[in-house]
């Protein structure tokens, strides 16, 4: 199908598809099986300029727009949800926040290295009991003097955790009136007191490490605060919205891979003397998968265009997140259903896609959450 993309965007998508077939496809099963960060693929992403895709040229980026970023995420996710997750957490969370709210000095210090792939970024938001940064953060940044803060406690389930070189850490700060608020800090992985705790074994997206980040009296210069004190809530909200759109593209890619795999299987699998794709029950499932993926893709591309243009996108990001959960889950359940017992086997690609897609859907927040956001927007 054609999606009204520019010639350039079509070509970017085509190149990303070729990149994924060449470098990711042969390693995808191994990445999943070994559950290790695929450093060599991250380096390749930098080599092909994918890490700096929508960032300004002055920091080494390509300024190609957020829609092009979504197109690349979609193509990479077709072969490895893990690689797409690493890219999203690096570029659409850590680097996005730095570019959006960093001072000129902070951007010059960190963005070129993140874009060149010399450093891997992570956005450390979740805590045990404070998912999506909502609710009181146990990680507290105590102001020592005008020059520094001390960060203590631990972040949980940090994507790219342990592999990352630079963390954006959300922490509770106290405003002048003594009121608690949230602030974000740039903390390098080698800062004394920062250690990597437990690595969480996950069902899917196993090549993207989810780790606990332990902070023991970590001294962070005030110059490393991202934006002003109390800006944390906005940083969380906007960054997660942007990431939701990228994760929507990730779901499109994984679901499309499941559809293509299922189309292939249903053509080859013969039952009662005929390929099963000739049976109406199978055709209905295939048609519904294709139709839902198409609609989700349109939603993702539209929301990505809003980000690119600088228009408000919070409502559209929530709609993408909601639809990604519905479409992703139903597509993979149908894919496994069509493939029957084979689909349930670890040997078949769809079982990995099923595990990966559930990771995309649960990340950052459950899918009930966007419904509240959508309602809040439309009830005004």
């Amino acid at each position, binding site marked *: *199908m*054609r999606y009204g993309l520019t*010639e*350039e965007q079509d*070509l*970017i998508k*085509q*190149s990303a598809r*070729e*990149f994924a077939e*060449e470098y990711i496809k042969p390693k995808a099963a191994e990445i999943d099986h070994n559950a290790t960060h695929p450093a060599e693929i991250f380096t390749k992403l930098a*080599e*092909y*300029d*994918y890490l700096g*895709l929508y960032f300004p040229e002055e920091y080494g980026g*390509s300024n*190609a727009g957020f829609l*092009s970023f979504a197109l*690349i995420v979609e193509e990479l996710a077709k072969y490895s949800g893990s690689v797409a997750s690493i890219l999203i957490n690096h570029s659409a969370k850590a680097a996005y926040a730095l570019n959006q709210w960093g001072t000129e000095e902070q951007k010059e210090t960190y963005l070129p290295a993140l874009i060149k792939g010399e450093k891997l970024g992570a956005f450390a938001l979740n805590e045990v009991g404070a998912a999506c940064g909502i609710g009181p953060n146990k990680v507290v940044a105590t102001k020592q003097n005008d020059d520094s803060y001390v960060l203590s406690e631990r972040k949980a389930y940090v994507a790219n955790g342990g592999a990352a070189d630079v963390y954006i850490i959300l922490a509770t700060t106290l405003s002048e009136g003594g009121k608690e608020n949230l602030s974000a800090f740039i903390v390098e992985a080698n800062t004394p007191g920062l250690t990597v705790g437990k690595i969480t074994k996950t069902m899917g997206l196993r090549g993207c490490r989810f780790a606990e980040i332990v902070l023991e009296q970590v001294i962070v210069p005030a110059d490393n605060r991202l934006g002003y004190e109390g800006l944390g809530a906005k940083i969380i909200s906007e960054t997660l919205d942007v990431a939701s759109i990228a994760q929507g593209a990730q779901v499109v890619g994984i679901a499309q891979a499941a559809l293509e795999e299922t189309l292939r299987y249903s053509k080859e699998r013969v039952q009662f*003397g005929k390929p099963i794709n000739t049976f109406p029950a199978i055709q209905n499932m295939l048609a519904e998968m294709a139709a839902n993926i198409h609609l989700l893709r349109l939603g993702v591309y539209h929301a990505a265009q809003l980000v690119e243009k600088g228009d408000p996108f919070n409502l559209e990001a929530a709609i993408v997140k909601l639809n990604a959960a519905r479409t992703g889950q139903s597509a993979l359940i149908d894919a496994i259903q069509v493939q029957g017992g084979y689909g349930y086997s670890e040997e078949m690609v769809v079982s990995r896609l099923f595990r990966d897609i559930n990771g995309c859907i649960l990340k950052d927040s459950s899918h009930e959450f966007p419904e509240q956001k959508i309602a809040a927007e439309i009830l005004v």
Partner: protein
Amino acid sequence: MPKVLACYKWVLDEQDIKVNSEDYTLDIGRAKGKISDYDKNAVEEAVQIVEKLGGSVEALTFGTATVKQSFKDLLSRGPEKVYFISDALAEKADAFVTANVLAAGIKKLGAYDLIICGEGSADSYNQQIAPRLGALLDIPAVTFVEKLTVEGNKVRAVRKLGDSTEVVTIEGPAVISVLPEINKPRIPSLKQVLAAGKKPSEELKLADLGLAADEIIPRVVTLSVKGYVSNRKNVIYKEASAADNVAQLMASLAKEGLC
């Protein structure tokens, strides 16, 4: 330093072409265009030669108006400039017409040390362009090339010929047609894609190429193009003895003239 020209064809992507199972006609309504596969090898080889030895690499194509859709893809793969001859005539052109048009275009552009083509196009795969260009330009043509080495104006080509290989040494200028084994076409990086939009393209008007009327009349007229569908006969031999089943299979194959 060599001046290299890569010739390429913009074809329909066969993956998007559907075959009607009733009458085998082709549905190309949703088919997108692509650079013909072996022509990507030709472009890659031209670019690699220039990356190694210096010089320049340009590209030339002949096609309908849709050929303009190929420029960014082509230029992202390395050539500095693309020349194109765009005319509705290309729709019906056979290898005779295509080679005449390309040769006339090359004569207008000036001298090249090497002209590299794919061995055949992804649609018709006639394998005629390189030999015809060699004849029309009066320079050597070397086909089925799987390895190419250029030193000064000396060209050493390894040709893959069925069950043997042949090594040919010639002096340029020459036309070379390459096999896919010769290299692996690069995947353009994001910056190469973006830079392609800034590279030039130039049209050569068919009317300005000085071709005689009979040089652009196809010698081959295509009456129809149909797809090929493999329909299984689903014959099952159910004799108790395997030997009887094999005998029946052999008899059936013999009846079909297959053994």
